């Protein structure tokens, strides 16, 4: 069924590099746990996080311009002693969820990054999970490649997220970019 969805990008871009996935441990830090950074420590700039080498990635709100960053692997960075377990944080009840995240993502540039509705088929079957996509955007704003960096464990859910990003997100022109997009499908 993969090919049925290949409307906006080439089917081969859906390759899932299993070797690359192996060992990549991404721990999402629940932003709800952190207090909103005060103006002193934070500007209104987007929340962009550098991808860390395997086993060192963490989701961190920080100040940085949206820089054009080419995709090359950083393999030898020293590991920080930071481990934040998702289990240990409070639920995200205070956190704005839908639509806010993409808005924070690139506030200076045009583009649309809608958040999908939870697919009914997944909801009914209790399918949930987290996944990480690597999205390569060309200078024209077209999505060149969407790849699964880390699978949710459910192929259909992975494909849903890939299709969504490839077909529904509109990127600004003139900026070549590769970003990692984490998805969290949450059922209570």
């Amino acid at each position, binding site marked *: 069924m993969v090919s049925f969805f290949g409307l906006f990008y080439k089917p081969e871009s859906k390759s899932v590099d299993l070797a690359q996935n192996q060992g990549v441990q991404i721990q999402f830090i629940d932003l709800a*746990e952190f207090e909103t950074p005060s103006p002193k420590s934070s500007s209104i700039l987007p*929340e962009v996080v550098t991808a860390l080498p395997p086993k060192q990635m963490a*989701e961190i709100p920080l100040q940085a311009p949206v820089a054009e960053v080419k995709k090359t692997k950083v393999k030898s960075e020293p590991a920080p002693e930071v481990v934040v377990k998702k289990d240990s944080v409070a639920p995200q009840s205070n956190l704005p969820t839908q639509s806010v995240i993409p808005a924070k993502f690139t506030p200076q540039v045009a583009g649309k990054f809608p958040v999908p509705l939870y697919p009914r*088929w997944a909801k009914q079957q209790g399918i949930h999970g987290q996944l990480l996509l690597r999205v390569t955007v060309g200078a024209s704003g077209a999505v060149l490649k969407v790849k699964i960096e880390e699978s949710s464990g459910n*192929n259909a859910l992975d494909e849903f997220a890939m299709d969504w990003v490839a077909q529904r997100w509109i990127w600004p022109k003139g900026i070549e970019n590769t970003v*990692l997009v984490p998805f969290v499908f949450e059922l209570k």
Partner: protein
Amino acid sequence: MKSKAVYSVLTIFASTMIMRAEDVKSAPQKITPVVVKGTAIGAELNPTSPSLILSGNALEILPQSNLGDVLADLPGVSTSYFGPNSSRPVIRGLEGDRLKITQNGTSTLDASSASPDHAVSADPASIREIQILRGPAALIYSPSILGGVINLIDNRIPVELLPQQFIINSRFGSVDQLSMQSVSAEGSFGSFAFHVDAFQKKTDDLSTPIGVITDTSSDSDGAGLGFSYVKNDSFIGLSYSGLNSTYGVTEPDVKIGLRQRRWELAGGISSPSDNFKSINYKASTTDYVHTEFESGQPGSTFKNNGFDSRIDFELAKSGSLEGLVGLQMGKFDFSVVGDEAFLPDTRNTSSAAFGSFVQELSDTSLRLRYGFRIESAKVKSSDWVHEGVDGSYAASQASFVPQSFSLAIEKAINAQWVSTLTLSTTERAPNYQELFADGPHIGTDSYEVGNRNLDKEKGIGIELEIAKSQGPISTSFSIFYNRFSSFIIQERNGYGPLTSSADYQLGGTEELARYDFVSVPADFYGSEIKMNFQIQETPTTKLGLELFGDYVRATHRDSSEALPRISPGRVGLGLHGLSQEWNWRFDYTYHLPQNHVANDETTTAGYTMAGASVTKLFKLSACDALFTLRLANLLNREAYNHSSFIKTQLPLPGRSVEAGLKLTF
């Protein structure tokens, strides 16, 4: 605080990282997570949120013989149990037209509310999700919400592109020799999504502790096909489905043959403009007919043909207010021909405007939900003969404007406890049967007489719920009082007219007890409780103890007499857990005796029921397999259901084992 410390460590670390990233221009940026939340119960309420959803494996483990059985273990639910094949759910003592059952949001047109021996025309084998709505959200489907609304979803019209999926499901049971097979396939071709399903189900006569009850077998099959055209922000789909069933109703040599065909159209568009979050529309037409065969000869034929349609406008969030408003319009023609023609042909039309809203208040511990529904309902009969006299044109029709409102005030007492106070005022238009019945009704062994001058059924309800959903001890406790200033019941009034037709001879007498539809003041009160102690909770091992109970009492306020067929309630203990990848549950329930009975009723003894179930999810080569095993009435107790019309003749099923295997490819 610890979290703050972690945050600053991370900030420092991250700053150095981003500098490094800029230096080497190497690593891709990672954005904040895209969080997609499923409609959750409680915290993530929207104006249409059901108070309970059953789907997937949670639905799979429940008994599937009929809709009543599927829901029977939920707090506040009992069943009308006219044998294993006709059993409607009863919630808080309310049933029939007071407890609306919809299929994908539009009416299931059948004859199940006309008589307790008529089955609901939706088989659990083709239902993929059951929603129970209460309070303001229920008003989007019905003006009569004090029991709730049950919405059945069959997935036949896809609302989105679907991943490829093929399911084979089999079930076998000991107590009625159940054999059920169903298949379904889903997928997408380009912008088209499709769903197809089919099932076959056979049961033999039911075994009970007092022996096999004859004339309770059934033979059903059904199928549905639907497809949708899905574009980015919209979809439109069509489905066609059918259900055939031949079933016994415990009467010697009587079988009911049911045939239902249904077309549905549905579509939706999200964010059509700044003012709307979505617009959804649905329409269905149903062609329902059932014939009651006596010794193979067709006796009476019930027909219900009609349509129902609705459009829902989900409003864009405006400040702290979210809402949905809509219109619904439907019509059905109901007729009975043959021996049991106790109802004239009727044309029933209704149209409604409704809305449901959720509003956050500046005091963040408070949230309001409120809703309204205003209907216009008309019943027009032809050939209405009342007590031997032809009804005039004017007398043969009736129209009503039921208006219902509901307000729920939610207050977070602290981080864990939430209380909800719900106030509702509801009205229901009398139906074709309550207005125009006049004749012998063999299903209930009575001569039924309607009342053309009945006014709307009116009630007010107040309910207080206190719930705690987090932590090792979770609980919900609710207490309700529903006060009807007018509640339509059947009241004994001597005997029906003598008839010479041999068809009316029942039990050697030609005289049938006459029951008139009358309106009386009535009180319903009761409570429901569920409390879970999670003793152990790890991803691989779980253990919990659940305490549950419900109670309802219904009284004719003038005479202080009980209303008939009210199951009083139960208390029970459930032990449940997960070990070695097996999910298991054991229940021990004491059903209360009913000593508070109506004049012509007998009391019903209490009884205990023990049951158990186990499920396991596993991989069978390339497919996901779900194995379920259910044991019911382990003690083989002889027990009778007070809400059944024929309780004295029909005990509940005996000890049984039911096993199922569902394979998903």
